[in-house]
């Protein structure tokens, strides 16, 4: 039997074109395997082969969603593949969204078995877990060696029309469809094991995560803007030049609080970004593009708003664990309330 034909989607970084400064490159197609494709070819063995690789910049994809999808679908169609794989994107948010979007498009519009992979906290995971198979990876590319065989295994199952097992068996992120399977241990033993882990503060995985009710009711609207104090918060990593608090460019462990009393404009001389997940040039040229101090000052002068809070808060969103950002936000909120702030504009990059 001839090998299954595989088309692989990767971003500019994994194609070794460049980092954030190249995130705006449009899609291009290359023959054969590129970068991680080699790991896939190894995992596929005699059964399948990467015949073509499509490379696209993460920013370009996300900012030109429809055009990106259509262009890439055309490229894939030409190759007549039996299997499509995207990524894995690990914890790269925009790459994850791109992988999820294109995998979904291939599955629904081309009807070709398609698999992607990413870290559970990648925003793309929540957006696409119920639409496509997403193999769960760790949060860094060091996991490629383990991730590629898992993705290859599931892709081959789909291509051969074999039944896909439960998420815990076939290593995909739970997709909202509950599926029975036989565990190695009986339930009571699993319960005792889980209890011991819970008692000892060790990690354990619940077999049935409670449905996510975690929505917060919207706060009531502000009646009169001219009487309130508004604060600016950002996950775009804007910091005073030199990054005095050493906010990490990724997987932040802290946030910064910066006094802007008397500051009318975040100039290139005074401010920059610590964020490692997007092209920093534009934010470094003018940080108001991320934290709009200049506009807010004008509104303050004109009396549109009562007051711009004299501090802004900043952290970097990319790769930062949900639990950490939650903790930051709780602390920021506490300080804002103590300072009698009434409302928040939060900007993300």
């Amino acid at each position: 039997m001839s090998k299954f034909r595989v088309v692989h989607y990767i971003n500019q970084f994994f194609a070794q074109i460049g980092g954030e400064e190249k995130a705006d490159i449009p899609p291009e197609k290359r023959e054969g395997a590129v970068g991680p494709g080699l790991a896939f070819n190894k995992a596929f063995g005699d059964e399948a082969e990467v015949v073509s690789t499509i490379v696209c910049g993460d920013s370009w994809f996300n900012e030109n969603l429809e055009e990106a999808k259509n262009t890439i679908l055309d490229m894939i169609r030409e190759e007549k593949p039996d299997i499509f794989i995207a990524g894995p994107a690990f914890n790269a948010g925009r790459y994850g969204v791109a992988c999820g979007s294109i995998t979904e498009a291939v599955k629904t519009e081309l009807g070709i078995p398609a698999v992607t992979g990413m870290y559970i906290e990648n925003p793309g995971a929540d957006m696409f877990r119920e639409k496509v198979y997403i193999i769960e990876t760790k949060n860094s590319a060091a996991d490629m060696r383990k991730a590629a065989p898992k993705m290859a295994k599931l892709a081959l199952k789909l291509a051969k029309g074999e039944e896909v097992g439960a998420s815990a068996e076939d290593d995909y992120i739970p997709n909202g469809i509950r599926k029975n399977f036989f565990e190695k241990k009986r339930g009571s033993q699993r319960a005792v094991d889980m209890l011991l882990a819970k008692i000892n503060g060790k990690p354990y995985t619940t077999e049935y995560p409670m449905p996510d009710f975690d929505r917060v009711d919207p706060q009531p609207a502000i009646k009169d803007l001219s009487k309130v104090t508004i604060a600016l918060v950002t996950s775009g990593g804007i910091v005073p030049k030199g990054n005095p608090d050493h906010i990490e460019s990724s997987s932040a462990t802290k946030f910064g609080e910066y006094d802007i009393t008397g500051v009318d404009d975040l100039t290139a001389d005074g401010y920059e970004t610590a964020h490692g997940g997007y092209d920093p040039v534009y934010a470094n040229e003018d940080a108001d593009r991320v934290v709009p101090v200049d506009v807010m000052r004008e509104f303050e002068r004109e009396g549109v708003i009562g007051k711009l809070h004299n501090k802004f808060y900043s952290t970097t969103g990319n790769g930062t664990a949900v639990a950490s950002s939650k903790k930051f936000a709780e602390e920021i909120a506490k300080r804002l309330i103590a300072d009698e702030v009434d409302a928040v504009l939060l900007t993300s990059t």
Partner: protein
Amino acid sequence: MKLELGYIDIKGIRFDDYNAIEDGVLVVDPDELVKPVLEDELIKSAHFEIATPGESIRITPVKDVIEPRVKVEGPGEIFPGMIAKVDTVGSGRTHVMRGMAVVTAGPIVGFQEGIIDMTGPGADYTPFSQLHNLVLVMEMEDSGASAHEYEKAARMAGLATAVRVGELARELEPDEIEVFETPTIAQSYSDELKDLPRVAYVMMLQSQGLLHDTYVYGVDVKRTLTTMLSATEVMDGAIVSGNCVSACDKNTTYHHLNNPVIQDLFKQHGKTLNFVGTIITNENVYLADKLRSSDWTAKLAGFLSLDAAIVSQEGFGNPDTDLILNCKKLEAQGIKTVIITDEYAGQDGKSQSLADADPAADAVVTGGNANQPIVLPPMDCVIGTLDYVDKIAGGHDGSLRPDGSIEAELQVITGATNEMGFNRLSAR
């Protein structure tokens, strides 16, 4: 309390004109054994059949599964308050006929009994396909008696038969002996135990009425407050099933006698944890009862100064609320809790699995999705009757196909998604 269980391994069952255990084979005289069953005037007819693992046999409608045991030393007898007089059991020595069960079958409520297949795909889902089963098939009189009265007659016939069979193991030398000892409060602070996390088992018992009942020392559990007993009492039959409810997640008397949570907690007792007590609580139909019973669960857990608990459920639907209330109130006291349940996520697996939910329930073990469709191929032999297959919970009109195969949900299989964690089945 200290109890020794002496296991007598049963490797087969055959009929003859005498009763004995010979080289691990149970020999019974079916005519003699059936006589006391027929003394109940509600039972019109009864007879015994044998089902061996691997045989092409389907048993249905199954009411209860009971393991024969006999008390050799210590106070009381098996099934106190039900078959024997009331006396506290759970100490001394008990002989267990391991590898077999008495199965009661026959129409009682019709739609609330289950299926045991001894081979094929269905056999993978029920633990009872692995046992040598002595099946007591009963038919009730059309005397106009209520379903409750029929249920009681069938329940008592099964328990009494198991006791009579168990008596044959009294004088035998066990193949294996296991010792279980539960601590008093003072003992739980002994030097060997005091540094280990204090863990209790919270066992929820079906008590919805309408034949969804459980009995403790003969007391209908819906009329009790949450209480405590020694885990060894359960091994002597302090708790029996009076259930006619969805087959997959009701606890048969066999499950109670061999409670897997109790067994697995004992295995860790004195090593990684301190198994200090067993709390039993009910699943009543009134909200006030649910609130009160879960309050008492939390209260007793507090009296025991627990660090952690495992809660097992029985049944589904409104008992999900009892489960979540118990979990929430334990967690609110800082008691780390794991719950065991099963799921009704729809045949496509896409629905919400439980009727109730709370973020405090962050450690859940599941026995699987009871709605999963399954096709059971025809069997050469049916013990009981297929008349009720279309009506059984988890079956539907047309479940029984002309060739004798059955297309239904896993729900129809006795013990398939047990919520004591008896099985390996799970879901994600």
